[in-house]
């Protein structure tokens, strides 16, 4: 014997089911633009049937919604995270290298090549008229312009290094705050899911945080099962590691800290740069992410051993590398120009340089005004004023004649190690009196340009640098930078494409499609209408049964 109002209950479950489905659709539609949102599907099934014993088998009791699932392909998430790490690294490198490129200002009409050309051309003019004060002043100004190019470039590099240092700090803060948000979400998700439900929206938020984190630092995120819970479910913990060390382990978190270095890593570095370490003082191994990109550019000196003689710099050509190259250039160039020292099969050889010559003797008052021992280029000293030749060379043998001992040469060479691209300048002697610019190899011979011609040879001295003449050195430096930047741009671009392809696939699986939702909406609306119609029909049945069936 069936219950009297059984039919109306079945219809009612249909109404409920349709409504629950419409709710899910509504949730999907309102989250169509939510970042990281995965579409949800109601799990609908027929409710438990009634077994009747009159031989007609089981009777259906309507429908029910047993849960709401999120549609997600976890494999795509893993893929996304690992590719996004490389994307972050190369994106940063590409961005920072293009800043370095801008600092060099080549190729242009105001870069190193143009400035050097103008300097040497002014020297050529001096060769033609060594007694002209106007041309002497021109040479000095062009010399100052050249020195300023190096000062500006080096200062810009230093500023950039400090900027990157601030970015490192922000980056680490971001990593830590993301990690603690993930830790909070872990707690919520774990306690909610203990009951066997799925915390769909919380999981979406967590995946989105991991997405962000994977761009900052190389992470590995997995759900690890730690045995069974009393209710028989797996005990799942969420674990994020960086190079094998846990950053977030379920409810626990290990932060990354930054601390100012006591000693510089590279001699060229700005002071007080940050080191990123684990909270417990362990070394942080980085294999990717924006943080690695930042540190490689900030510290990279092509793997050269740092200032302490032990620690190696990152194997990448970053700011310290370019600073050291500029320093190498100004030191070698100034030494060749001032002293006439050149390399011959790796040995320093003394030749004729600026210090070996005599300047202009305007009134021929005798050897008093001659300029032997004057260096054209020195460096900024106290109070940012150019130092004089004698101060600069102070103590070392003043003008070693050709064939001086290697000891004398290395003594002088050591003085030039004090010059950097940042403090490189024209000596105070030349700044104060252009007559000290030497051209002649005999005092008082104002038309003699023997020394000047020797100095001009510096320009085309192919053995001055490993790369060749001065201009070849800068050319290969700029070309090398161009190649590195091009590589970073390409990697960044291709990595970006890969990441967006994976993201596309994720969106294909998890994204909300309005057309689909609309179709379903119509579908469930119809189902709702049909269930309602069913109730009406039932109502009519009862009307007939109760009101029209003549009883008495």
């Amino acid at each position, binding site marked *: 014997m069936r219950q009297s109002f059984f039919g109306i209950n079945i219809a009612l479950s249909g109404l409920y089911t349709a409504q629950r489905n419409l709710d899910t659709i509504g949730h999907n539609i309102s989250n169509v633009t939510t970042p990281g949102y995965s579409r949800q599907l109601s799990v609908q099934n027929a409710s438990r049937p009634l077994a009747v014993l009159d031989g007609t088998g089981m009777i259906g009791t309507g429908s029910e919604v047993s849960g709401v699932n999120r549609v997600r392909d976890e494999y795509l998430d893993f893929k996304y995270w690992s590719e996004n790490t490389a994307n972050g690294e190369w994106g940063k490198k590409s961005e920072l290298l293009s800043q370095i490129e*801008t600092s060099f200002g080549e190729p242009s009409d105001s870069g190193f090549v143009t400035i050097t050309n103008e300097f040497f051309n002014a020297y050529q003019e001096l*060769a033609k008229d060594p007694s002209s004060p106007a041309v002497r002043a021109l040479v000095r100004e062009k010399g100052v312009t050249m020195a300023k190019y190096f000062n500006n470039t080096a200062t810009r590099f230093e500023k950039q290094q400090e900027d990157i240092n601030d970015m490192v700090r922000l980056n680490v803060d971001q990593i830590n705050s993301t990690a603690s948000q993930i830790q909070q979400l872990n707690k919520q998700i774990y306690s909610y899911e203990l009951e066997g439900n799925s915390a769909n929206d919380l999981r979406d938020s967590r995946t989105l945080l991991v997405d962000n984190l994977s761009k900052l630092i190389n992470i590995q995120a997995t759900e690890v099962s730690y045995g069974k819970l009393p209710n028989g479910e797996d005990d799942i913990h969420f674990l994020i590691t960086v190079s094998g060390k846990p950053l977030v382990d379920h409810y626990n978190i290990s932060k990354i800290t930054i601390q100012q270095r006591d000693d510089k890593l590279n001699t060229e570095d700005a002071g007080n740069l940050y080191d990123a370490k684990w909270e417990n003082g362990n070394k942080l191994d980085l294999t990717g992410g924006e943080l690695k990109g930042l540190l490689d550019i900030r510290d990279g000196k092509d793997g050269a051993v740092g200032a302490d003689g032990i620690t190696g710099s990152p194997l990448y050509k970053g700011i310290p590398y370019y600073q050291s190259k500029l320093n190498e250039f100004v030191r070698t160039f100034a030494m060749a120009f001032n002293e006439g020292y050149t390399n011959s099969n790796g040995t320093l050889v003394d030749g004729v340089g600026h210090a070996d010559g005599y300047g202009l003797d305007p009134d021929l008052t005798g050897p008093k005004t001659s300029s032997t021992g*004057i260096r054209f280029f020195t460096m900024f000293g106290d109070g940012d004023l150019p130092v004089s030749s004698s101060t600069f060379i102070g103590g070392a043998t003043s*003008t070693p004649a050709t064939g001086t001992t290697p000891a004398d040469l290395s003594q002088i060479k050591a003085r030039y190690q004090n010059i950097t691209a940042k403090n490189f300048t024209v000596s105070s002697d030349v700044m104060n009196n252009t007559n000290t610019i030497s051209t002649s190899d005999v005092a008082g011979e104002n*038309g003699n340009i023997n020394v000047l011609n020797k100095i001009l040879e510096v320009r*085309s001295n192919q053995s001055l640098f490993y790369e060749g003449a001065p201009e070849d050195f800068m050319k290969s430096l700029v070309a090398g*930078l161009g190649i590195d930047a*091009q590589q970073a741009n390409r990697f960044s671009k291709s990595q970006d494409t890969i990441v967006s392809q994976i993201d*596309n696939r994720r969106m*294909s699986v998890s994204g909300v499609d309005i057309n689909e939702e609309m179709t379903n909406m119509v579908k469930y609306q119809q189902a709702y209408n049909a269930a309602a119609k069913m109730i009406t029909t039932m109502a009519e049945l009862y009307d007939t049964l109760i009101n029209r069936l003549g009883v008495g």
Partner: protein
Amino acid sequence: MRITNNMVISNMIKNLGNNQARLSKYQEQVNTGKKISVPSDDPVVAARALKLRTDVAKVEQYQKNIGDAQSWLDATDEAMSKLGDVLQRARELTVQAANGTNTPEETQKISAELKQLKIQAIHQSNSTYAGRYIFSGYKTDQKVMNDDETSANFGKYAIDVNTTGEKIFYEVGVGDSISINVTGGDLFNLGLDASNSSNGISTSQIDKLTYPYTVDATNDAISISVDGNPSNPLVATIPPAATPGGYTDAASLAKAIQDAVNTQIDTINVGLPVGSAPMLPIEVSIDAGHIELRTTSKTSTSAITITNSGFFASVNATNTVETTGDVGETPSMIKMFDDVIAGMEKGDSKAISNQLDTFDEQIGNVLRVRADVGARQNRMVLTEDRMSNDLINFTEAMSNNENVDVAEAIMNLKNEESVFQASLAAGARIIQQSLVDFLK
């Protein structure tokens, strides 16, 4: 594959971004006319661009140098041409004067004209180019000959010029230098050097010098001051003579004094601060009634002043300082004029005609130098030609390397523009339509 709304939107944004990036790249190419703006656009082009810029800058400077070298050589040639005319006229006059039938008056007239020609030749030696003396070797701010007609040294060399050493070179190509000057000695001294003896002479009258001359504590001190030197007065001690009884002759005494003073100068030089010029040694000579000290410095104000004590007091020296030395040798060309003029004044027609050979020699020498300068001018013309070819080649290479083909860049730009517009239009269609639009 399931296509969702967000996919469509993000793909569209990405593609529009790519289109825009390409659009802006071509826009920049059209705006700047350059293929690249940073080295990473194309490192090879960037490296080559730097190299070619240097090449072009060098060639442009070489062209300037060639122009200046040519002007200098032209000025030299001009001066020598005038000098040649002077010599030619002088030779004609000499031939005329060698004729023994001239009256003394006629010879006088010829001699007067010759004197004027000599003056002209001397002034010609101090020809300038852009304010610099062209025959003075490295000392382009000093006259090669004394051209002060009132001076006793008129027509003598005022400075030393080393004919083989003092060549001024201009760089007119990579590793290609040319000497652009002619030295005074080459032209006026038959290819020899121009030379000027020391300046800064101090001559002293001496009364009481008898040989053998014995030095002891009363008379062995030499005290002198030298202008422009850091340590004044300088005190040296004459060592005792090697021969018993004292110095036997003037030469050995002079040498002993010179050595003693120069040893002292060396000692002073060792102690000089960095950068200051060393003191130059002095020369000493003694004859019957004089002792002469001269610095080897070539500056006219350097003079030696003796202090009347020790040695100088013992020989009763009276000091005369001559600071305006500048007593140079007479160039052979000027000497020839002098000889001819002297011959005329004596009326010695034999001596005059003897000089005709010398004239031929001098004229031949001037022609030799002119031919040399002519050859150099010729070389400059060729080098100039080569440089202008180089400039065209390098500029073209530079342009090929880094300049865009404007037509191509504009075509690319237009193409990208239409692609961009098409994708915007397509995007607008895709985005606006969904089932919502059709449900009632």
